[in-house]
């Protein structure tokens, strides 16, 4: 099904509450990030290092993935590979059903959203409960996350208070945040102690030691990966890093870019299941490595840069479009600038091409990206591909699918005009002389703006007049 980005964006803009919620949240996150990076020179150096580490990782990606697998296996962590969301869900379902699991608790994982895991498991009779407070709220409301770091950012505390009152038995309305969190804590603690399986994402998977690293503040990630007897971690193949030494700079970039924290409350490094004599921790740990289009992104030397992403969300926090329309308008798992780059490459430009238009190419996302992904360039690249003449070379699926004959004709006309100076001069002269005859209504442009009218003289004419005037000036002296 085609995504209706345009309509959804228009709807979002018409919702004042939603715009308020996002405005507040974005201002908050931007200020937090700014206060964490006070030394601009140090930030520049750190970003360059982040870029370098991730680029080096990508250069050795297949070898590092094999090394990661080998070291995980040696540590007792079982490794599974999945090319598609269906494969990933199936692998996870098989692990859960092999032990008759009924309840899975989940830490925040955008990759599990990407593969639609909750839905898949629930259809097969397994309760899959989100335990990150934001995700819990979103799941309670039957929604999806609107931000990759703060999933319930689109809701005000009053909206959440009403949601809790409606959906949780015995809970009265309160918009006291401590009480709301207390309610969530109480319910989820019960679930942590009952769950058969804990599911988590991965922030960094260290190849040299076979270690899974998780970044979080709440402690639900630690609960999910420690209390249930089985822990399943799912991650995209790009989350591997070569060495432990790569971690400190990347972690510092991640938490500071995401929430302006110098470090998160918990940084959890898991290297093996429970060993003999240990009292807690899962009896078995599984790692699911998901491709889902990533190895295809890897083929293109430009689009490959997408895979440097460490999922901090800074690009969306600084995007003027995201700040106004919010995450749901994109209609995709990953919203904002990184979503505009990732989603068309995963789902195809035919389905997600339109979202690349929700960008003013202002460049803010590229400027804040902690690993220097040139997001505006990549968005432009994908725009180009979606309207390109299909020549069978583009790697992104759906390339050329959004080519509009009228638009293509207009541009080819422009090209001809620009390529022939005499024709160009003739046409601009006509346009300036006939300026009063220019149309008053030009589609979408004039819905909110007055129609532009050509100037009485073209810039070209003005400049040559000035040159002539200067010459006469010079001659008279």
């Amino acid at each position, binding site marked *: 099904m085609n995504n209706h980005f345009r309509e959804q964006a228009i709807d979002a803009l018409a919702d004042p509450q939603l715009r308020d919620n996002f405005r507040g949240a974005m201002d908050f996150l931007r200020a937090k990030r700014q206060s964490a990076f006070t030394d601009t020179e140090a930030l520049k150096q750190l970003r360059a290092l982040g870029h370098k580490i991730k680029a080096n990782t990508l250069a050795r990606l297949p070898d590092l993935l094999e090394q990661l697998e080998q070291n995980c296996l040696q*540590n007792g962590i079982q490794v599974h590979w999945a090319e598609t969301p269906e494969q990933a869900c199936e692998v996870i379902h098989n692990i859960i059903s092999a032990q008759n699991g009924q309840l899975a608790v989940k830490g925040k994982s955008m990759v599990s959203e990407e593969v639609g895991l909750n839905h898949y498991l629930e259809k097969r009779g397994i309760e899959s409960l989100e335990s990150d407070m934001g995700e819990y709220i979103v799941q309670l409301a039957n929604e999806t996350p609107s931000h990759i770091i703060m999933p319930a950012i689109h809701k005000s505390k009053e909206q959440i208070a009403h949601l809790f009152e409606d959906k949780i038995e015995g809970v009265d309305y309160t918009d006291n945040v401590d009480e709301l969190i207390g309610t969530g804590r109480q319910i989820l603690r019960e679930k942590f102690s009952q769950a058969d399986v804990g599911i988590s994402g991965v922030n960094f998977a260290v190849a040299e030691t076979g270690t899974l690293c998780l970044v979080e503040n709440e402690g639900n990630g630690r609960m999910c990966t420690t209390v249930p007897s089985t822990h399943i971690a799912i991650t995209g193949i790009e989350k591997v890093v070569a060495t432990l030494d790569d971690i400190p700079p990347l972690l510092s970039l991640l938490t500071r870019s995401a929430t302006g924290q110098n470090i998160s409350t918990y940084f959890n490094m898991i290297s093996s299941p429970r060993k003999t004599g240990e009292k807690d921790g899962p009896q078995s740990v599984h790692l699911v490595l998901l491709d889902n289009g990533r190895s295809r992104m890897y083929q293109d030397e430009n689009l490959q840069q997408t895979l440097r992403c460490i999922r901090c969300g800074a690009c969306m926090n600084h995007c003027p479009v995201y700040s106004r329309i919010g995450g749901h308008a994109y209609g995709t798992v990953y919203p904002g600038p990184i979503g505009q780059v990732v989603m068309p490459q995963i789902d195809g430009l035919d389905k997600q091409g339109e979202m690349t238009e929700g960008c003013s190419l202002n460049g803010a996302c590229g400027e804040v990206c902690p690993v220097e992904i040139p997001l505006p360039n990549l968005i432009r690249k994908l725009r180009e591909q979606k309207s390109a003449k299909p020549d069978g070379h583009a790697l992104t699926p759906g390339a050329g699918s959004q080519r509009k004959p009228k638009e293509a004709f207009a541009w080819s006309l422009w090209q001809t005009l620009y390529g022939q100076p005499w024709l160009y001069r003739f046409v601009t002269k006509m346009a300036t002389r006939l300026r009063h005859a220019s149309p008053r209504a030009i589609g979408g442009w004039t819905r909110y703006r007055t129609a532009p009218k050509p100037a009485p003289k073209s810039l070209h004419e003005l400049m040559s007049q000035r040159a002539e005037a200067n010459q006469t000036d010079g001659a008279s002296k």
Partner: protein
Amino acid sequence: MSSAKANILNRLRSATTPSSTTKSDTQSISTSWKPPGYDQPERFARFKEALQASHAEIIETSEDEWPKQLMEIAASKCIAQWLYNPSSESGLRLEQQVVATTQCNIQLIPYDQPVESFKTELFNQIDASFTDVEAGIAETGTLVLLPDQDEPRLMSLVPPIHIALFRESTLLNSFSELIAQQQWSTQGMPTNALLISGPSKTADIQQTLAYGAHGPKELIVLVIRDIQT
């Protein structure tokens, strides 16, 4: 080899051009980033400031005084059921102090059985836990815990109050320094290594900070100032 694995790796390996582009790309990036280093007493000041900024409570004490101070905390917070490690030196001193402090009705509970048979007690009855700390990181105000069979992972997570005993002599500058000191790259990593910087928290409801989201609501750090300045 599973076919998914073979297919993924084949696709990655078939992309020869991008990898070489990336390599030359990274060679041209130069960066002078280094993890921070602090001198005494700046190191401890940084640690304290950062950890307090994350809402942890810091109590500076000495090798002789800490058990008494621990009892004062227990009394002020009405801690009755206390999870501890009886096989550690600090656990033994806690035991002795509890016996000596007659007015406190404290029950010390060891985490000496698998979590499967201990869940109800752990989740519903325990008021606080007391653990040692492996090291500290000054830059970020971080405690390093390496849970093992005597001090399991959930000790620092499930009880509403976590009290940690930290020696200033174990304070390092940065996470990078910790990785080097522990020799994890060559010796391998422990089952679980934790960096803890403050009590559990969330800002998921309208960016309002709330403590005790899922883990401890309070983190109290007893710092033994065992470095002469």
